[in-house]
């Protein structure tokens, strides 16, 4: 046995490697963290992704633009509507397709519904990561279920909706959709209050999330964080305000930003955003005009040679589609700027040096979707 006499470097325990995932309750999918731990404290962290990699960008090069829309459902499978919207807007800008006004309103309504559903999931799983045995999660699922019912009513699918089309949306909602939506929106604020009251002021939840996983505003910007992770750090950046697409410039809403940039702030930003989404949907319902829901486009849409970077504010942040067209019906390059993946850029900084439970909560607050990471 070596007798390296080094009292200052007295390791209390031996560091060891812990594999969190690919099958683990807190990774929300097949996502793996290889963590070097010293007791309870994380000394190093390496993330291993790709278990769900379907090479979507390669597949897209063999398919027309319309055929690519269903792929985006499967990328971020918790925010299919937003993904559909993003790719449609990008293609429309590339090909110069006009969208009827009613379709724009419908897109706003469904994108915001999707945001509510996705944030409910994100916040629910975050609280579940903090150990609340799924009660808040199931409360938040209550409204998510109703929203998915509305999706099903409109386009027949709940999760992978494939609802948006280039030039509009695939279906006009049925007449019974509107009262159901109205009723949901009427009860939504009290429901949000209800599930906020479950956790928002819970001292245990506060103790677990306050000053945990703190990201400063400068780091968040430099680390390409987007969405609630960026806004949680106090940066008022929302593409719906900054670069209004569809009819967001006619909507009156506010952007919540956090105070400390910790897990609690990201949670609260998501919570407030659901409230704002309800407001947006109410305004859109009041303003929506009659008219066609779709313009006809050629089956083989041939955008001119060129490139476009279209982006929307998805539930997880800036969702970009970088499309390069060579004039053929299929994109030459189809790149999805996945917020889930890029938000993980700072995970190592957040997790190294803190204890395992903090790292789990910090990871949960980034709201990753493995389909979006791997694509």
């Amino acid at each position, binding site marked *: 046995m070596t007798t390296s006499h080094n009292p200052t470097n007295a390791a209390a325990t031996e560091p060891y490697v812990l594999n969190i995932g690919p099958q683990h309750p807190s990774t929300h999918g097949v996502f793996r963290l290889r963590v070097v731990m010293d007791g309870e404290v994380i000394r190093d962290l390496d993330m291993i*992704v*790709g278990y769900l*990699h379907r*090479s979507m*960008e*390669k597949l897209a*090069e*063999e*398919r*027309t633009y319309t055929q690519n829309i269903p792929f985006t459902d499967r990328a971020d499978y918790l925010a299919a509507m937003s993904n559909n919207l993003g790719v449609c807007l990008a293609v429309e*800008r*590339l090909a*110069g397709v006009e969208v009827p006004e009613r379709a724009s309103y419908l897109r706003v309504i469904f994108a915001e519904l999707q945001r509510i559903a996705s944030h409910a999931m994100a916040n629910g799983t975050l609280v579940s990561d903090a150990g609340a045995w799924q009660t808040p999660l199931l409360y938040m699922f209550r409204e998510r279920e109703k929203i998915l019912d509305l999706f099903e009513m409109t386009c027949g699918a709940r999760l992978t909706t494939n609802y948006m089309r280039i030039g509009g949306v695939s279906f006009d909602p049925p007449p019974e959709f509107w009262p159901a939506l109205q009723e949901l929106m009427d009860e939504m604020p009290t429901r949000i209050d209800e599930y906020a009251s479950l956790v928002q002021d819970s001292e245990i939840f506060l103790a677990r999330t306050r000053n945990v996983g703190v990201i400063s505003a400068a*780091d968040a*910007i*430099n*680390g*390409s*964080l987007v969405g609630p992770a960026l806004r949680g750090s106090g*940066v008022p*950046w929302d593409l719906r305000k*900054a*670069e209004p697409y569809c009819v967001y410039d006619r909507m009156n809403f506010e952007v919540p930003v956090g105070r400390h940039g910790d897990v609690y702030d990201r949670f609260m930003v998501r919570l407030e955003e659901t409230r704002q989404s309800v407001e947006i949907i109410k305004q859109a319902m009041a303003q929506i005009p009659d008219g066609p829901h779709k313009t006809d486009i*050629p*089956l*083989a849409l*041939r955008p001119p040679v*060129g*490139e*476009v*970077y*279209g*982006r929307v504010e998805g539930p997880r942040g*800036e969702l*970009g589609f*970088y499309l*390069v067209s*060579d004039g*053929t*019906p*299929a994109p*030459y*390059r189809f*790149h999805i*700027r996945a917020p889930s*993946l*890029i938000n*993980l*850029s*700072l995970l190592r900084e957040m997790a190294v040096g803190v204890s395992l439970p903090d790292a789990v909560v910090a990871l949960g607050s980034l709201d990753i979707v493995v389909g979006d990471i*791997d694509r």
Partner: protein
Amino acid sequence: MPAGPHQLDGHRVAARLGAALSGIVTRATDEWVEVAPERVQEALRWLRDSQEFDAAQLSNLTAVDRHTSFEVVYHLQSLDLNHQVVVKAIVADHEAPSLPSAYPVYKGALLQEREVYDLMGIRFADHPDLRRLFLWEGYPGHPLRKDFLGIGGGRTSGLGRFPNEDPANRDRMMNAGNLTSQDMPPEAGGHGSAMASGGH
């Protein structure tokens, strides 16, 4: 041109960038500015630190395979000024492409560069942790390259032509009412005619 609503004119960026760092701009268009690949880090740092452009965030980083070269595309944005700057670097070496990393300038490049390395095979020098991201070490090739698993018969990957556009099928489809004349390209033929029998 389909530029984003807040995207800056590439010529304007090129003028200022070229004035500050001489010889760095190789080309500029309405939409983007092309910089010398070996000096891309310098260009990004200048754009990030300049008062005028304030490109604080690397919004998107990706690459495009142009058969003989690679385009690495940087979408930068300023949150305060609310505009976008698109920077491109053309990597001429298609066999062993290499480029300085943007990580020293933007921490957000960490995973995006790994993704580009994994799928396109572009090496980023002085990237702290350049490993494959999605695929495992030892995976043969880089799948997003156009010559990956080269298709026989001189075809390149990509959908050259919508299958139903094959002149042989054209009349049949139009008779069946599935197509309108609007769906047809202006001229028949083209480089993708082999696709018609491809059964995609």
